[in-house]
């Protein structure tokens, strides 16, 4: 009988204790999360490009659509900065330089793709290109966002006209197609490289900041 009384008393006492401090976590979306998003976007674009490139190369016709096609790189001015880089140099890039290289490359590649869009024949190809350009635009903005959140200045945008002054227009149809072939190749390589660039950035950028605010309710 006595045990029941003790039990009721304890219950009452516990119920009236002040509530434990409530943990209120507010997580500031750090650059970490947008780097992950940018990485995911490059992977998505890489998949999209496979279909787009297949369709476009078929449109160009042989030999461009042959899997063994391995032409020498003609000494024409490269339209977009190449993804190819010395291994040690790539390792030693600062976060700013790494991001800026990606930003510049995709901005230029986007310009050239837009020019391509205006020239192609079939509706299907135009549709695919338009969709791809939209996604690529998203990638450029995403990279810009990461740079801003880390306090880096955005590189100066590409000059107005798509072709830098001095680059001669392709003198014939075949060479024009070669230019297109290399543009797609460069884009593909950049997307492969970006996955690695953003992997590296993921590790080096400080994790998202988490602030704990303790609120203790008064007695």
């Amino acid at each position: 009988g006595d045990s029941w009384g003790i039990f009721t008393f304890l219950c009452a006492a516990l119920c009236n204790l002040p509530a434990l401090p409530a943990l209120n976590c507010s997580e500031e979306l750090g650059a970490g999360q947008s780097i992950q998003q940018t990485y995911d976007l490059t992977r998505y674009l890489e998949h999209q490009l496979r279909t787009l490139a297949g369709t476009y190369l078929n449109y160009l016709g042989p030999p461009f659509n042959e899997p063994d096609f391995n032409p020498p790189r003609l000494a024409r001015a490269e339209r977009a900065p190449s993804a190819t880089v010395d291994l040690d140099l790539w390792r030693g890039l600062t976060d700013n330089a790494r991001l800026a290289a990606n930003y510049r490359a995709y901005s230029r590649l986007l310009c050239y793709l837009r020019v391509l869009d205006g020239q192609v024949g079939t509706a299907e190809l135009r549709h695919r290109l338009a969709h791809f350009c939209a996604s690529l635009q998203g990638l450029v903005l995403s990279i810009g966002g990461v740079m801003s959140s880390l306090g880096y200045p955005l590189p100066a945008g590409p000059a107005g006209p798509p072709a830098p002054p001095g680059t001669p227009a392709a003198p014939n149809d075949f060479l024009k197609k070669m230019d297109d072939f290399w543009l797609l190749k460069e884009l593909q390589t950049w997307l492969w490289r970006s996955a690695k660039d953003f992997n590296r950035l993921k590790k080096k950028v400080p994790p998202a900041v988490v602030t704990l605010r303790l609120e203790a309710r008064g007695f």
Partner: protein
Amino acid sequence: ESHIQYERVGADVTMKCGSMDWDAAVTWTANGTDIDESRLNGSYLILKNVDLSQSGQYSCYEGSSWHLKYQTYLRVGTPPKEPVLMCRSNNYPKGFYCSWHLPTPTYIPNSFNISVIHGTKDMVCEKDAVPKNRCHIRYIQLFSTVKYKVTLTVTNALGKNFTTLTFDEFAIVKPDPPESVVAKPVPNNPRRLEVSWQNPSSWPDPESFPLKFFLRYRPLILDQWQHVELSDGTSHTITDAYAGKEYIIQVAAKDNDIGTWSDWSVAVHATPWTEEPKHLTTEAQITETTSASTSSFMAPPTTKICDKGAVVGSGAMAVCWTAGLVVAAYSVLFI
């Protein structure tokens, strides 16, 4: 002075006895054994449609003086068939290696020459001491748009052959399988197995070039594998294992973004945790408690399921274990 002579399988071989005239009297030996005169055409030795067993040392001696006039070592073989070449980067981004072999033996010495062209540049593929027929290249540039072209030429005394591989830097990335795969049962969890492994030691930079993994497992008694793909971490807990069954488990690795999956790791075996059988100890306890009571009730043999054949006390009654416990408890209370 000694010679070596290489001839194709199936060829007809004529051996001259040095500078001796055709009509000189000579004796030929093959590996020390005299050759029958019927094989001779004058002083020439004729071997028709040679086969591999006819390889050996052939010597020609002047008839009467038994002076050694000529000696040659005959090696019968074949010209090389198209070699098999494979190139792979298991240590990306450091570089890649190429290895090769002949699909069929030639039975005579072969020499291999490998050339690597990257765009307009010639690269040197450094031959490995071990294993033979392998060479490696270090990348100078990464993320190349231009393909690599590797040409392997094999030459021997009877002919030559070659093969070419053309590939992108990214296409040949294939890590080695994960190492130190360990699978352990989880205490008090009859359907779980804890699997852990390590990155292959040949992968130089898992921080910047992370790997993802593929786990497959099945009980030994079944043929169907179950698969799990893991994008990070080097451990996984299987939660749907069949209780008490021995499992076989393997893991494979792949660069997160490029290339192909590694071969499967060495297989490990594990069986999930099973409960120790308890009934032997419990039965002894029950017999002790009921023996003191006046009731003639005796607890049935301890089984987890209702045993319809159990005979209790004086009556032929089917009694469940739980019911037996209740009855035993009542008998104790009435003491």
